[in-house]
């Protein structure tokens, strides 16, 4: 049974429909990411799960119990705030103890559990510091410890890494994943950073306009996006419209290309996706021809910008011998399984 069940939840702010009839479930111990551009409703949905916003309609169930209108303090859910919201007048230890104190846990037990919490995030040596004396990453760890010591069944994280620089962000991503695995708490993590979602989540829900466009594993979403928004939101993509010449063939640049999956009506025009790393370049010869416009060196890979039948495609390949130069003519091939029809 799902730990959290959301049932047709809707929330309006005046004329704006922030969350539009969302239904979704999150399992116990799952790492779920809500990914979307700012204003897509992901934070509002998170705040409704935490109890800081009430839905206009719909229900939220946690562990089989209806928590839709329950006060935040009565939910077995904790929220890690975007800018951490540590109490500046309390020490790190007192911050971590706060939730236990409110629940009436005895002082000795409280101290022990808070100590364990700090150890879990490697902040034991900072117990007596005040929050303003800590760096952003350190404050983030304290905020995590403060939430986790309450042993919630579900932890909500609102853009937890957005304020950190890239290097620290990657380090904290690994720590978040480790923490989630070690504690077995289900995480719902809101982010607008696709790499973060891909590297952390068991499942990702992509949101736009207050709805989930697609929910699935990172691989699902990346390889088989339902539409061009999902395709372009996750990673780089080449999207193009082409005519279907046979159920599993499309015509492009005077050539016929095969694609896998269920056939489409011949004669119709459809949108297709091909990821840059699936575009294979070879010396000019037979098949689809393209002209190299630009080459960018990115260390681990080279990125080519191609002009192909009036389209602009990206292709990427590991650097090495046989690197093309701008102006070179190349032939392009694509394996059928990587040519994916998507809806516009």
């Amino acid at each position, binding site marked *: 049974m799902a730990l959290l069940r959301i049932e047709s939840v809707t929330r309006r702010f005046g004329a704006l429909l922030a969350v539009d009839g969302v239904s979704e479930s999150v399992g116990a111990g799952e790492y779920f990411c809500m990914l979307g551009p700012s204003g897509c409703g992901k934070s509002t949905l998170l705040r409704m799960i935490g109890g800081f916003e009430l839905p206009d309609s719909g229900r939220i169930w946690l562990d089989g119990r209806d928590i839709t209108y329950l006060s935040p*303090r009565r939910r077995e859910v904790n929220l890690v705030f975007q800018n951490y919201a540590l*109490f500046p007048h309390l020490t790190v230890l007192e911050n971590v103890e706060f939730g236990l104190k409110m629940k009436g846990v005895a002082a000795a037990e409280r101290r022990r559990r808070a100590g364990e919490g700090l150890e879990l995030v490697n902040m034991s040596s900072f117990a007596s510091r005040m929050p303003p004396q800590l760096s952003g990453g350190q404050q983030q760890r304290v905020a995590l410890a403060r939430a986790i010591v309450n042993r919630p069944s579900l932890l909500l994280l609102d853009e937890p890494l957005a304020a950190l620089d890239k290097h620290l962000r990657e380090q904290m991503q690994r720590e978040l994943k480790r923490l989630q695995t070690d504690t077995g708490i289900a995480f719902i993590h809101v982010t607008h950073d696709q790499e973060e979602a891909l590297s952390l989540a068991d499942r990702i829900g992509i949101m736009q306009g207050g709805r989930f466009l697609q929910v699935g594993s990172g691989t699902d979403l990346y390889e088989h996006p339902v539409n061009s928004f999902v395709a372009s939101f996750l990673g780089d993509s080449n999207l193009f419209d082409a005519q279907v010449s046979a159920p599993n063939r499309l015509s492009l640049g005077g050539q016929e290309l095969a694609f896998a999956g269920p056939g489409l009506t011949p004669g119709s025009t459809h949108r297709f996706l091909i990821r840059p790393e699936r575009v294979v370049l070879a010396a000019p010869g037979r098949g689809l021809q393209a002209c190299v416009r630009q080459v960018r060196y990115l260390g681990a890979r080279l990125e080519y910008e191609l002009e192909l039948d009036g389209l602009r495609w990206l292709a990427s390949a590991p650097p090495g011998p046989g690197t093309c130069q701008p102006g070179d003519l190349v032939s392009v091939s694509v394996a059928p399984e990587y040519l994916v029809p998507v809806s516009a």
Partner: protein
Amino acid sequence: MRLSSNRLLTLGLPMAYLGVFFAIPLAIVLIYSVLTPGDYGGIVWAWSWEGYAGLLSADLAVILLRSLRVAGLATLICMVIGFPAAWFISQLPLRAQTVWMFLLSIPAWMNLLVKNYAWIVLLRREGLVNQVLGVLGVETPPEWLYHEGAVLLGLVHTYLPFMILPLYSALERLDLRLLEAARDLGANGFQVWLRVVLPQCAAGLWAGFLLVCIPAFGAFLTPDLLGGANSTMIGTLIQQQFLMGRNWPLGSAMSVSVMLLVWLALVVFRKAAGKSGEPSLI
């Protein structure tokens, strides 16, 4: 260090002002307190401890205690009324906040004498309040004026804005997410207030305390006008030494001792309040 003419001006003007209107008068009071009183007021230039000896014979202790009680009560009432008011204003839209703070500051422009006489007009035996009560059928209305209650009313009226202002500026800066975080961690409404809101505006509360308690402690006009003979406060007593008792050294000695007392009390209070690293007025 050479001072540029700009710095001389910015530093020099306030220094000169404070020197003429604060330091010199203070020095005069200090010196007068150790001189001999003249027969018809004023002083005679002869050293004497008579002023300080006089402190023991005057009913100073009783009046000091009363002043402390009245000032303390007035401060407490200002806090109790001022905190919800400041919270209310701080949660309004910015434009409305400005309007409310403006309205709040209007009574502060009015002369203290006018405000106190207004209360007398309202509350005296044949005053407006009693006339209204008479119409409503109240035959024997209570005595509104000339006791400690009336003094408290006047003091709270005068000093309430000075409590609300610093509290408002503290509450207006309060990070509301901290309140959400506290609720998320299981705090109820009172716990949120006690453990998060109150500590966050400790500095504002302290400033309000200083701005209300000290002037209320030294007030002489309000107790004089609204209080009776039995509600004399220390300010009135000192004033009497100069204008009626004609004993300037005694009045000066009282002033000096009260100043020392207030300063000492603040230092002790501040120490007791402990670790807070907020900038302080003392």
